[in-house]
């Protein structure tokens, strides 16, 4: 069989893209630090594995998980039996693999999880590619789409940390099957949508809104398809399947499904943290954040050209949908809000982003750590950025010079993303664009995940050969958790003494604080310490090191 390169070139280009990304990750994955919540996630996985083993009487597994739980527990960790509502869709299988493959070295466990999390993200990018291909049937636009999807610096950096970008990945799968489902409510599509909705809800409970969005879209579709009864029947099976799968995949619900399910709603208000956060050079309670919080964070920490493309794409589509909305007639042979499959996709993604954003705004979501809790919005940002590119492509079709100029600007802008990924390595998750001053950028929370800890310890090892080194922390970062990224021999050299500055030889400081640092001097470095080093990437100070005089 002969291969026709012209026919296959798109596939080759995709393979090349994924090949380069995977090689980069494979070669550099161990450079990333351990984030402060990894310990909790590991504990969460073993806790629920222990619970399942107890329910099914797997005696060996009960013993192993008990040992693991004792080994992981640490004074600074939240109690899993109290904070037991966090999903297990990633943590539990990972804990199972940890036991199955007998991975005992803690940093190998974490890097294994990083890799797995990244592979899920990469897989979701392929699904995103399918969504774009179905919409535009244009390889160039779809390829630009996945380039932006994978290589937005913050999203790329966070994709290893199996938290917010993991949800983004599962939401992409859910949206893909959502789109398939509203076109053909076959059993397979309904089942897969239920499955991925359940997974998404497991990871972020607020995605419980997805079944309601589906119902909303079905109502609109039935106005012109006139098959409401059939759709309702299928929707009911989806709803039922969703709850069954959610129940099976979430052991938290097993003991008392209804009460435990409703308890999640009350815990959304009760258990979420209430701290002060640094935003735009001021401290705010995260329960009373300004409305501009999300927008400011997104603007300052996403590539600037991506922001522009999304902004114009979203405005363009909003105008279009408003125009359609105000022209609705009581009888029409077509749908009033969209025409055809392509516009249907636009509408679904528009409804998703609008509803999610309104929910966060109206319910005054207590956000923290920048916009990481809503990183999933990046799916919609890229989608509407591509929407605008498609619009420009059509408009410039007959103006070759402009089209070529536009193409060059686009390639240059995307190359900037790749450049930032290399420049910020391994701190891509702390990316800020360069259009703001250094003071402005450092007036926002920096290394909230504490991933700079690994780099800090390695730096201290280079300059100090004491047998035991006492390190204090002048910020709200459980620094000792970062030690797990290092070899055991190195780990044992460090003694983290919290805010007992008088005991320390070095102080680690970043701008993360749960109190207003301008007036509360809890994290003020004592006068007998002097700054000896500053880790800076771009304009952001990741951490500072102070040494006793």
């Amino acid at each position: 069989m002969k291969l026709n390169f012209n026919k296959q070139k798109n596939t080759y280009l995709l393979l090349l893209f994924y090949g380069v990304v995977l090689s980069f990750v494979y070669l550099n994955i161990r450079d990333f630090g351990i984030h402060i919540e990894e310990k909790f996630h590991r504990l969460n996985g073993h806790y629920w594995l222990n619970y399942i083993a107890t329910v099914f009487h797997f005696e060996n597994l009960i013993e192993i998980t008990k040992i693991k739980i004792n080994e992981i527990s640490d004074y600074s960790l939240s109690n899993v039996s109290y904070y037991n509502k966090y999903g297990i869709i990633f943590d539990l299988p990972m804990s199972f693999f940890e036991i199955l493959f007998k991975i005992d070295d803690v940093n190998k466990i974490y890097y294994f999880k990083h890799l797995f999390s990244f592979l899920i993200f990469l897989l979701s990018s392929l699904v995103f590619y399918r969504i774009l291909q179905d919409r535009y049937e244009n390889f160039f636009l779809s390829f630009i789409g996945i380039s932006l999807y994978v290589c937005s610096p913050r999203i790329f950096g966070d994709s290893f940390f199996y938290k917010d970008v993991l949800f983004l990945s599962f939401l992409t799968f859910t949206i893909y099957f959502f789109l398939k489902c509203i076109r053909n409510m076959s059993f397979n599509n309904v089942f897969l949508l239920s499955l991925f909705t359940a997974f998404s809800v497991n990871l972020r409970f607020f995605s419980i809104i997805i079944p309601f969005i589906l119902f909303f879209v079905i109502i609109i579709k039935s106005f012109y398809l006139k098959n409401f009864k059939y759709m309702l029947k299928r929707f009911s099976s989806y709803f039922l399947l969703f709850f069954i799968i959610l129940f099976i995949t979430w052991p938290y619900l097993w003991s008392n499904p209804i009460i435990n399910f409703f308890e999640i709603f009350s815990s959304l208000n009760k258990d979420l943290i209430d701290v002060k956060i640094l935003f735009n050079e001021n401290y705010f309670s995260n329960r009373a954040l300004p409305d501009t919080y999300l927008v400011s964070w997104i603007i300052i920490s996403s590539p600037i050209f991506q922001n522009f493309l999304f902004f114009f794409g979203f405005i363009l589509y909003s105008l279009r949908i408003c125009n359609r909305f105000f022209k609705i007639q009581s009888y029409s042979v077509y749908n009033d809000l969209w025409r055809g499959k392509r516009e249907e996709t636009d509408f679904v993604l528009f409804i998703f982003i609008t509803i999610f954003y309104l929910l966060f705004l109206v319910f005054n979501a207590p956000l923290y750590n920048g916009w990481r809790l809503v990183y999933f919005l990046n799916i919609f940002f890229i989608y509407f950025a591509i929407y605008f590119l498609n619009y420009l492509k059509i408009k410039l079709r007959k103006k070759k010079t402009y089209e070529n100029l536009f193409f060059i600007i686009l390639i240059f802008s995307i190359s900037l993303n790749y450049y930032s990924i290399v420049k910020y390595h391994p701190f891509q998750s702390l990316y800020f664009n360069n259009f703001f001053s250094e003071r402005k950028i450092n007036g926002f929370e920096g290394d909230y995940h504490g991933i700079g800890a690994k780099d800090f310890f390695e730096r201290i090892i280079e300059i100090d050969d004491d047998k035991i080194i006492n390190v204090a922390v002048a910020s709200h970062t459980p620094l000792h958790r970062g030690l797990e990224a290092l070899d055991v021999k190195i780990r044992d050299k460090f003694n983290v003494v919290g805010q007992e500055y008088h005991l320390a030889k070095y102080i680690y400081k970043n701008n993360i604080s749960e109190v207003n640092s301008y007036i509360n001097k809890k994290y003020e470095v004592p006068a007998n310490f002097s700054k000896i080093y500053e880790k800076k990437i771009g304009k952001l100070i990741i951490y500072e090191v102070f040494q006793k005089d």
Partner: protein
Amino acid sequence: MKIFFYKAIFIFFLFLLGFHFSFNYTSKKLSNFVNEKISKDSIEVIKESIRAEIKSAIQKDEYIKPEDAKLINQFLNKIRSDLEKNK
């Protein structure tokens, strides 16, 4: 039915926005004001400034002018004597 549905959605959307920009906005503003003025941190700031004022007063050779000191003394004596009388 269709028109009614779309109108209902539109009104609900306006209601949400109205709710947010009236009730939510005021409650956030109030909450930020309370946080800023009477939070634990602000009280610490006030305590700290009182301490600083006392320290600077101690270091000064003369914190109260002689005529003021005399006046305050007379005033305190007056209060003391009134209190003694009405025991």
